[in-house]
């Protein structure tokens, strides 16, 4: 049996599901923080397989989805500046700002390049020294160290035409914000696997300590996720704790090199999240020492941003409530009619990690 198949063995999956069903005394409500988990859970049909004993709730863990409209406008304004190329991960291309998306902007003549890695953006800057290349720094703890590393690389290479618009965000403060709001009952949290490779399992210890709820860090294979859910159901019956169901990839204290590089380049500050509002100590801004690589300092686009168009929210989009798990995607009146993957209104329908895109693709509502 190949390695991948060993993590997807149907007999082991049936056993785990049976054990979860036997152990769950009441409906256990588990929030999967990460959008990657949302898609994997739906792709393998685990929501249906675990219902009604376990109810999976989709959390805010999609970096593109939680990026504010105004931040997208900022990226687009940069792309419209003469001599500037905006480099972005593909997910961001079709997310609408208040007037247009980066894809629309490109159609209107702006220079927008899709990149797979921040290092590809560095290569673009090296290839064309006459152009300013701005990398859109989107992503959680998983991605932020890679973008920080690109800034260190640009500094070593003495690049004067590379900068970053940092929209990076930290995940534990968002989890806190959801729990503090108290809008939804969450019994346990499926911890994000790849964020945790960087932060370590230690980042989630506040959940049992301060909120009395359990967390199991999980990989993305079906058996990884089922094993983590079983850990959580056991913990709910027993005592709140944090467990690591992804020990092959995640260490207790995470990746110290990545943490150091991230801390060297970025300072933690307050930032606005779509749906969750301003959250203290949840954003990463470029430190003074690296000001030369900060697109916010390098380019003034305040005039272009002074007159925003209508926000997605004003156009009827309910992504904010979807991100807080207050509503399921198909409760939004735009879902599947006014908002589809081909013509999205909100980011949750665009992103490969968005809950609306997952529901649209795999069908979601258990009551339907």
């Amino acid at each position, binding site marked *: 049996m190949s390695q991948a198949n060993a993590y997807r063995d149907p007999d082991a999956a049936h056993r785990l599901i049976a054990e979860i069903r036997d152990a769950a005394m009441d409906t256990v409500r588990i929030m999967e923080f990460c959008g990657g988990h949302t898609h994997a859970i739906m792709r393998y049909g685990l929501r249906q397989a675990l219902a009604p004993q376990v109810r999976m709730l989709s959390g805010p863990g999609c970096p593109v989805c939680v990026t504010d409209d105004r931040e997208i406008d900022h990226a687009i304004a940069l792309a419209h500046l003469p001599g500037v190329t905006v480099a972005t991960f593909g997910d961001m291309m079709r997310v609408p700002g208040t007037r247009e998306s980066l894809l629309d902007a490109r159609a209107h003549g702006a220079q927008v390049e899709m990149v797979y890695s921040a290092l590809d953006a560095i290569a673009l800057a090296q290839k064309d020294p006459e152009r300013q290349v701005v990398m859109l720094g989107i992503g959680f703890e998983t991605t932020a160290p*890679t973008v920080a590393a690109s800034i260190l690389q640009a500094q070593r290479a003495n690049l004067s035409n590379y900068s970053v618009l940092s929209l990076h965000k930290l995940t534990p403060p968002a989890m806190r914000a959801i729990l503090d709001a108290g809008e939804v009952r969450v019994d346990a949290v499926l911890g994000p696997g790849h964020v945790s490779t960087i932060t370590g399992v230690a980042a989630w210890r506040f959940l049992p300590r301060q909120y009395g709820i359990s967390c199991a860090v999980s990989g993305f294979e079906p058996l990884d996720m089922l094993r983590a859910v079983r850990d959580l159901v056991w913990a709910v019956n027993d005592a709140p704790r944090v467990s690591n169901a992804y020990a092959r990839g995640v260490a207790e204290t995470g990746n110290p090199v990545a943490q150091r590089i991230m801390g060297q380049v970025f300072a933690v500050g307050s930032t606005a999240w779509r749906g969750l509002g301003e959250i203290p100590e949840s954003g990463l801004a470029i430190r003074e020492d690296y000001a030369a690589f900060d697109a916010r300092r390098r380019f003034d686009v305040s005039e272009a941003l002074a007159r925003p168009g209508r926000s997605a929210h004003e156009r009827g989009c309910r992504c904010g409530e979807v991100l807080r798990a207050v509503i399921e995607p198909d409760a939004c009146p735009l879902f599947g009619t006014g908002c589809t993957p081909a013509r999205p209104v909100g980011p949750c329908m665009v992103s490969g990690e968005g809950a609306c895109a997952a529901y649209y693709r795999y069908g979601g509502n258990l009551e339907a």
Partner: protein
Amino acid sequence: MCLAIPLRVAAINEDKASVELGGVLREVSTMLTPEVRVGDYVLVHTGFCISVLDEQEAQETLALFAELAEAERELIMQEAQQDSTPSAEAS
């Protein structure tokens, strides 16, 4: 966005590693995982190794899953035997 895939390191050159992806070698940065060695499996995210997979932990997880699968198959066998016993009597 937080997608990362496990790949095997075929060669290392300074702060770059060649990893095998679908039979093709691709270069990724090891700036975040300087401890990586040839032969290791790494998680690759946006062109960077972000974690070196722990072989022993992987084996333990696979052993656990194999045990669960075995338990399930035994249950299925037992149920099949129970089902077949009365029908054998009937015939």
